[in-house]
Each structure stands twice: as structure tokens, then as C-alpha cells.
């Protein structure tokens, strides 16, 4: 019944390829976070703008990002837009999909963070002659980013894990894609995916711990 012979050596022989894949995974996650944060800031400004179309746009984005499967979002970024003749490479599609998801969740995090900043902060800025935008940029935004820093590291972990969905749009250079290809080649399924899982774990754990260390510095004040 249980006659599987573990061949760990075969899996470890492939470690360099898997680590190359891990680098791609981190690239996607980091890029999608940087872009996601920038977009979330923009969406937050939209939400505060008082303009109905902009507010509706931001709300729609957040609603879709948070209430549909990430797989759907990535699929749409690849096969969905292909229906309109727009073709992205798997790398670009997965980047768009995860960025979309990140931006939605982060915008919601930022909303919570804004609630923790007293209205009087912006008012104090305005009374010093800062414009509304300057007051947001120099007084509200830095506080908002600090308050939502730990939720941001959570989202970063999510971004790493979501890269595994790239295989559905033909991505094969990231950690999950590489592992899947190696599996097709060697059939060492358990060993390869167990090793990939360990690498995923080490990456995300490093992010969580690194995030805490950085937070300790950021919250000096």
C-alpha cells in the first residue's frame, strides 16, 4: 500500500533551479507591492476627493479585489483581456492580477489607518498654510503608511503565495511554475513540492520577521 521510495537527492539536485524560481517569485511580489501601494495611495486620494466618479471608481476596485477569487483576477488579466485582443505575457498578467488584488486590500487597510489619525492633524496643516494636498502628503500620508505597515507585510506574504496562481496563465519561471515543470520531468512529486513549500515558508517568514524589525524602527516616535 505504501511503497513510495523517497528520493530526496533528486529534489535537492534541482534546488538551484528552484532558487532561481524563488527569485522570480520575489520579483513579482516586490513589484506588485510597490505598484500596489502606489495605486492604493491613489485610490485613497480618490476616496477622499469628494468627487463621486472617483469615489465610485475606487470603491468598485476595492469591492472586486476583496470579494472575488485572486485566481479570477489573474485569469481576467490574462485570458479576459485577450478577448479584446490585448495579450500580455504570463509574467505581466500575474503582475497585473496580484497588483490589482494588493491595491484593493491595501486601500481598505489605509482607510482603517486614516480613521486612527485625528481630523485635527489635517486642520493643523491647513492652518499653517499648507494646501490640502500638501497636508495629505506631509502629515497624513506618513502617519497612514506607518499605521498600516504591519498589514502591509501581511499583504506582501499574500503576494508571495499568490504567485503560485501564475501556473494557470502559463507562468513557469517562478518557484511554483519551476517546481511543476520539474515534477513533470522527474515525477518526484512529494519531494519537489515539499522542498518548494519549505522555500515558500522561509521567504514569507523572513518577510514577517523583517517587517517586525523595521516596524520597531518606524514606530520610534
Amino acid at each position, binding site marked *: 500500500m505504501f511503497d513510495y521510495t523517497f528520493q530526496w537527492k533528486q529534489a535537492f539536485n534541482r534546488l538551484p533551479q528552484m532558487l532561481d524560481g524563488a527569485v522570480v517569485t520575489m520579483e513579482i511580489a516586490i513589484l506588485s507591492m510597490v505598484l500596489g501601494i502606489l495605486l492604493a495611495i491613489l485610490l485613497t486620494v480618490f476616496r477622499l476627493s469628494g468627487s463621486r466618479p472617483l469615489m465610485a471608481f475606487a470603491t468598485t476596485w476595492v469591492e472586486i479585489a476583496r470579494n472575488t477569487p485572486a485566481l479570477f483576477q489573474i485569469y481576467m488579466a490574462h485570458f479576459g483581456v485577450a478577448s479584446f485582443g490585448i495579450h500580455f505575457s504570463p509574467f505581466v498578467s500575474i503582475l497585473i492580477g496580484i497588483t490589482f488584488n494588493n491595491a484593493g486590500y491595501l486601500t481598505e487597510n489605509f482607510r482603517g489607518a486614516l480613521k486612527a489619525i*485625528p481630523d*485635527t*492633524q489635517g*486642520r*493643523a*496643516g*491647513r*492652518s*499653517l*498654510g*499648507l*494646501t490640502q494636498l*500638501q497636508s495629505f502628503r*506631509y*502629515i497624513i500620508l*506618513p*502617519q497612514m503608511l*506607518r499605521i498600516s505597515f504591519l498589514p502591509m507585510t501581511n499583504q506582501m506574504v499574500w503576494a508571495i503565495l499568490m504567485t503560485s496562481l501564475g501556473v494557470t496563465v502559463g507562468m513557469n519561471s517562478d518557484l511554483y511554475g519551476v517546481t511543476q515543470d520539474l515534477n513533470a520531468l522527474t515525477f518526484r512529486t512529494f519531494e519537489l513540492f515539499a522542498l518548494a513549500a519549505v522555500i515558500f515558508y522561509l521567504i514569507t517568514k523572513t518577510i514577517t520577521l523583517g517587517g517586525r524589525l523595521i516596524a520597531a524602527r518606524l514606530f*520610534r*516616535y
Partner: protein
Amino acid sequence: MIEIQNVRKSFGDLEVLKGIDLTVQKGEVVTVIGGSGSGKSTLLTCINGLEPIDSGRITIDGTEVHAKSTNLNKLRRKVGIVFQQWNAFPHLTVLENVTLAPRKVLGMAKAEAEAIAEKQLRHVGLGDKLTTYPSRLSGGQQQRMAIARALAMSPDYMLFDEVTSALDPQLVGEVLETLKMLAEEGMTMICVTHEMGFARDVSNRVAFFHQGIMAEIGAPDQLFNDPQHPETQKFLANVR
């Protein structure tokens, strides 16, 4: 010169200012006293345009505050305001709190802004706290920092909105000393306050507000020793 002419202001159904007239000359210190809800704090936020008014006119050196064509951000450089809640920016050091507006609003170079900020902070007795974060300061120190922050913009006028009301009693003195010093230096000031001693010592004129009207205004000696309006008499009898 700040000219306030027949200013009315409502929040919903509640009329908080019912036709206020007041002219403050350059170099003058006017304190405003009165019960809570009398409209005195609202008047200050109307003067620097943080609150719109319903009717009447407020002009600062001839510029109408609430005219559509007025650039409020520009006007506010002239008029500093310090609130009851000092609103220190928690993510910035004391020095950065004070240099922010000179750098971003006036476009000053960092070194120049820092020199001015240091001077103002030393002036209010915080010369040794430049690199400290506000959370490490007492309420009185934070309030003095807020005063330095407003002064760093070299305003022509300063508005103080109950700046000692949120402080522990033992910290009130240091802030009042700072205000006194400013008054002696000739700063034009409107101070809303509950500190009667301060109002008596420092002001050129004291105004008593009652339910949205300025019931009485006069020299401190007259207003405190010989109040004319029955509400002023009642108020002063209670606070003594």
C-alpha cells in the same frame, strides 16, 4: 488690522455667531472670554478661513477672508493659529514640526528654515528638544512647540484658541508666560481664554461673548472692575 463686520455663522439650526463686530488694530492684544458655546472659538476659526461664514465680512489688512478670489493658503501665512489641542505632528521631530510649513509653504531652503525654527524654539524654551519626538514632550512643551510652529511662518497676527485649557494646571503657567512674552514683543493677538488673570494682565481690551453676541468690550480694568452688561456681571461673579 483685522476687521470683523456683522459676522453671522450657524451650524445647522444653531446660530453660534449672531452679528459680531470687532476691529483689532496692529499691535493690539484682545482677549475673548465667555462661557462655552458662546461662539468665541468659532470666531477664531472664521478669522483664518477654516470655517466659512454665513454673512458679514472679515478683512485682514484689507483682504476679505471669505471672498472667492482670496487665496486662503496665502492669507494663512499672515495669521497663525494655535488650538486647544496642540496637534503636534507625531511622526516628525520637534525641529521638523516647525520647519515643515516654512519649507513647503514658503519654499525655504532646509538650512534657512532650520535656523528660523531653532530661533523660535529657543524663544519658547525648547532649544534643547530639537531632535525629540513630540510624544516625549509634556503637554505644555507640545503647546509651546505649536506656538513656535506658528511663529516660524512670521505671521503678522496670532490667534490663540484656549491654548491652556487642555493642560495640567501646573503646565498652564509656562504657556501663559510664552504668550505674555509675545504680547510684550508687540505681536497682534486675539486670545480666547478662560484665564482671567492673563486676560487682565496682558490685554489691551477684553471682549465678553454671550450666546453668539459680543455683549461687552472694554479695557481690562473697566470690564473686570465695572462690568456693564448683566451677563458679564453674572459670568465674572461665577468665575471668581
